[in-house]
C-alpha cells in the first residue's frame, strides 16, 4: 500500500474539502437498532446511524453515555444483544477484533493497547494479523509514519515515548493495515494543541484518500473543526444528529448534556500571604517508565487557585506524590505556611494543613473493596481526630462519612457501600468532599474531573472555588485546559518534569498555552507548519 499511498497523499493534501463534501458518498457502515445491556445499565438502547465512505463522523456524548460500548461492538470486542450492522452492504457481525480488522475496521484506543516493555515495531506487529518479518516491518513503519507526518523510530521502547508518540504508534499500526474505517476514541486527550493540529492534518489526509473515520469525543470545538456529521448519545440512546459545521457548540452541548449548565461562579480574589511554597524540587523517576521532576518551584497564596497543565505522563503523578508526602524530599523543598515539611509523611503534612486528592480514584484515593465509611478514615483520621491512642473512633468516622455524603451530594445507598460500587462522578465527589471537609489550608488535586459527568464536574469545580474563597490555597493539576482556564487564577505548564513559571490565566491564548505545554513533542517546527498548511 505504501507506494501508492504516498502518491495519493500528495494529491490528498491539496484536494479542496468543499468539492469532496458535495459528492454523494457510498454508505460504508450502517448500524440499526443496536442494544446492549449490562447488569443494572442499558449501555446502548436502539442506536442507529450510518457512516459514508471518506466521511469523518463524530460520536458525541458525555462520559458514560455509551460511546465506548458502541465502538467495542463495531470492533468485535462486545456482542450486541439486539440490532444489526452492515459493512459495505454486507451483513457485519464481527465475533472478534481479528475479524473486524480483516474487513478493514481499525481502532485507536484511548487506553490500554500498548506494551511498555516492547519496542515500536513489536507493538505494531501485535496489532496486525499477518505482519511482515520484523526488518521489513521496521522499514514500512518509518516510511508510512513519515509519509503521514507522524515520524516514529521502530526500535524505541514504547515505555520511553511521550503520550503523543504513543498515540502515533497506534495510528501507524492501524494505517499499515489499509483500513476502510478508522475508529478513534478520545484521541486528543493526550495531545498538546499543536499535536492536535498535526493529528487533524493526518486525519483529513486519510479522509481525502477515502478512509472513513469514526471520531469519538466530548470536545465540541474539535468536532466542529474536523467532522462532517455527528451523532449524539445520551444515556445509551441517540438523542440527535447534526452537521457540526452548521451547529453551534452550545446547541451540541445541550443535546449532549440534556440540561443547561451553570458555569462556576467565583468572587474576585484578594490573595493573602503565601500558603504553599515549593523550591528547587527534584525527584528521580520512581519507576522504569516514570518521569523525573526537575527543579520545580512555585508558590500559591491564600485564596488563590493555581492551575498546572500538561499532557499526560509529564510528571503530574510524581508531582502530586512529592507534594502529598508519599514521596519524601529534602526538608526545605516544600513549605506550608512557612513551615518546612519536605521530609514529612502524608499524615504530618495533613496536620500542617495540606490535603491532596490523587488522580487514580480506585486504588489510590480510595480502596475499592472498603466501604465509604472506611474510606473516610483513610485520609481523614488525622485532621478529624478519628483515632485515640491508635484506637479507631468508628462512631466519629461514621458521622464524618455521612457528613461528606450529605454535603457533597454523593448518590449512594449508604456509607456501608463499597467504593468500587459508586460511579466515577459520585466517587470523585466523595473523595473531594472528604478532603475539602477537613478544611485544609492548602489543597492539591490531580485531574479532579477526569471521567466525571458534566454536572458532577461543575459541582466539583465550584466546591474547589468555594474552598479558595474561604482562604485556602488551591492547586489544580489537570490535563483539561478548559478546566484550568475556567477556575485558575494563574497557569503553569508541566513539561517533561519541569514546571514553567506561572502566568495569569487572564488573556492567555490557546497557542501560548500550547507552546508552554511543549508544543509538538519530537517534531521540528518546520514539519508542524508543513502539515498544518
Amino acid at each position: 500500500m505504501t507506494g501508492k499511498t504516498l502518491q495519493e497523499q500528495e494529491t490528498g493534501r491539496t484536494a479542496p474539502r468543499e468539492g469532496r463534501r458535495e459528492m454523494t458518498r457510498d454508505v460504508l457502515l450502517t448500524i440499526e437498532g443496536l442494544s446492549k445491556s449490562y447488569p443494572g445499565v442499558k449501555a446502548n438502547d436502539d442506536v442507529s446511524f450510518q457512516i459514508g465512505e471518506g466521511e469523518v463522523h463524530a460520536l458525541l456524548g458525555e462520559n458514560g453515555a455509551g460511546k465506548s460500548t458502541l465502538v467495542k461492538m463495531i470492533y468485535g470486542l462486545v456482542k450486541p444483544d439486539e440490532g444489526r450492522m452492515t459493512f459495505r452492504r454486507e451483513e457485519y457481525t464481527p465475533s472478534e477484533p481479528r475479524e473486524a480488522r480483516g474487513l478493514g475496521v481499525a481502532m485507536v484506543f484511548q487506553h490500554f493497547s500498548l506494551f511498555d516493555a516492547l519496542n515500536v515495531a513489536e507493538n505494531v506487529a501485535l496489532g496486525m494479523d499477518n505482519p511482515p518479518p520484523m526488518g521489513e516491518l521496521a522499514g514500512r513503519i518509518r516510511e508510512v509514519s513519515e509519509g503521514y507526518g507522524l515520524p516514529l523510530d521502530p526500535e524505541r521502547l514504547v515505555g520511553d515515548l511521550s503520550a503523543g508518540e504513543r498515540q502515533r504508534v497506534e495510528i501507524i499500526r492501524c494505517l499499515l493495515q489499509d483500513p476502510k474505517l478508522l475508529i478513534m476514541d478520545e484521541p486528543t486527550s493526550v495531545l498538546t494543541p499543536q499535536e492536535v493540529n498535526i493529528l487533524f492534518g493526518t486525519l483529513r489526509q486519510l479522509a481525502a484518500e477515502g478512509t472513513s473515520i469514526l471520531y469519538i469525543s466530548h470536545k465540541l470545538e474539535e468536532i466542529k473543526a474536523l467532522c462532517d456529521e455527528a451523532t449524539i448519545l445520551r444515556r445509551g440512546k441517540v438523542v440527535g444528529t447534526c452537521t457540526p459545521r452548521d451547529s453551534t457548540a452550545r446547541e451540541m452541548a445541550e443535546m449532549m448534556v440534556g440540561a443547561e449548565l451553570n458555569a462556576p461562579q467565583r468572587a474576585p480574589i484578594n490573595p493573602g500571604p503565601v500558603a504553599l511554597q515549593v523550591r528547587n524540587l527534584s525527584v528521580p523517576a520512581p519507576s522504569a517508565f516514570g518521569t523525573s521532576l526537575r527543579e520545580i518551584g512555585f508558590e500559591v497564596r491564600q485564596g488563590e487557585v493555581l492551575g498546572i497543565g500538561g499532557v499526560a505522563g509529564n510528571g503530574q503523578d510524581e508531582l502530586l506524590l512529592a507534594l502529598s508526602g508519599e514521596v519524601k524530599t529534602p526538608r526545605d523543598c516544600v513549605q506550608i505556611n512557612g513551615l518546612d515539611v519536605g521530609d514529612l509523611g502524608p499524615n504530618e503534612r495533613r496536620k500542617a494543613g495540606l490535603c491532596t486528592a490523587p488522580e487514580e480514584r480506585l486504588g489510590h484515593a480510595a480502596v475499592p473493596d472498603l466501604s465509604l465509611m472506611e474510606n473516610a478514615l483513610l485520609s481523614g483520621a488525622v485532621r478529624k481526630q478519628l483515632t485515640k491512642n491508635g484506637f479507631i473512633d468508628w462512631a466519629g468516622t461514621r458521622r464524618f462519612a455521612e457528613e461528606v455524603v450529605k454535603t457533597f451530594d454523593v448518590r449512594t445507598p449508604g456509607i456501608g457501600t463499597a467504593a468500587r460500587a459508586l460511579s466515577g462522578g459520585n466517587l470523585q465527589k466523595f473523595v473531594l468532599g472528604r478532603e475539602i471537609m477537613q478544611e485544609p489550608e492548602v489543597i492539591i488535586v490531580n485531574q479532579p474531573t477526569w471521567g466525571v459527568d458534566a454536572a458532577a464536574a461543575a459541582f466539583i469545580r465550584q466546591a474547589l472555588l468555594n474552598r479558595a474563597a474561604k482562604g485556602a490555597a488551591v492547586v489544580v493539576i489537570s490535563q483539561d485546559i478548559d478546566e484550568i482556564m475556567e477556575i485558575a487564577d494563574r497557569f503553569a505548564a508541566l513539561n517533561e518534569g519541569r514546571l514553567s513559571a506561572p502566568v495569569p490565566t487572564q488573556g492567555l491564548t490557546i497557542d501560548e498555552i500550547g507552546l508552554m505545554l511543549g508544543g509538538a513533542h519530537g517534531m521540528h517546527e518546520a514539519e508542524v507548519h508543513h502539515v498544518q498548511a
Partner: protein
Amino acid sequence: MVIGGIDIVLLIASMMVAATPILLAATGEMVAEKSGVLNLGVEGMMIIGAISGFAAAVATESPFVGFMAAAVGGAVMALLFALLTQYLLSNQVATGLALTLFGLGLSALMGQGYQGIKPPPTAKIDMGPLSDIPGLGPILFNHDWVVYLSLLLVGGTWAFLKYTRAGLILRAVGESHDAAHALGYRVIRVRIAALMFGGALAGLGGAYLSLVRVPQWTEGMTAGAGWIALAIVVFASWKAERVLLGAYLFGGVTVLQLRLQAAGIAIPVQVLSMAPYLITIIVLVIMSAPRGRATLAAPAALGRVFHASH
C-alpha cells in the same frame, strides 16, 4: 585434573546432571511467568512429576514412558492451577502454595509401596569416540538423553520467545493483559498453555530426580528444588540464557558441597547441605540490590488477576 581431592572434569559433568532438574523446572516457570502468571506450585508439580514418572517407569520398565508420564502429571497439576487462577480468579500466591502442599500430600499417597525400589536405568547416549576425548568427552558427550533434551528446551525457549510471533504474543500477554485483550488475543488461553508447558517441564525435572539423579522414590524428595527454580527465574531476570547459567551455577554449588562432604573436609555436613539454600538467598539479594533492577525485567502483569469486564 584434581584439586583438593576433587576431580574437576567429573565435577563439571556431575554439575550438569545436578543442574538438570532445576534447569527444566526453571525454564518452564520462566515461560509461565513471561505470560504474566506467578505459579508458586513448582515444588508440587515437580514432586508429582517425580512420583508419576517413577511409577510409570517401574510399571513399564521404560524410563522414556516414565518421563512422558511425569510431563503429563506436571501439566495436569498446572492445569488445576490454571483453572483456579484463570477462570475462578483465585489469588495466585495462595493457589501456588496450595498446589505445593497438595502435591506433596498427593505424591506421598501415590508413592505408597514405591519406596526402596530401583527404577529402570536411563541410558546414556552412546557418542562413540567423542566421549573419549579427554576433558571435553566426559563433560559434553557422556550424558543421558534428558540432559541434552533440557539444553534443547532452553535453547528452543530462547528462540521461541525472541523470534516467533507466538513468543511475541506470549510476552505481550505478560506485559499487559488488558492491551492484549483489547487487540483480540485470548489472554486466558495463552496463559493456560504457558502454565501447562511450565508444569510439564517441572514434571520432567521431578522425574529426573527420581529416575536418574537419586535414583529412587522418597517422600518429599524434591527438598526445595522447585523453590530454588523459582529463585533462579528471578536471578535470570526472565531470560532463558541466564536461566541456564543460574541452574548450572546452582548445580555446581550442590555438587561441590557433596564432593566436599565425600572428601571428608572438616566442615559439618549440615553446614554444607544448607549451603545451596544460603547461596540462593545471597544470589536473590544481589539480584534485587540495585533497587528496581529485578523488577524492571519482570513481566509487568506478573501476578495480576485478569478479568475481562466485558
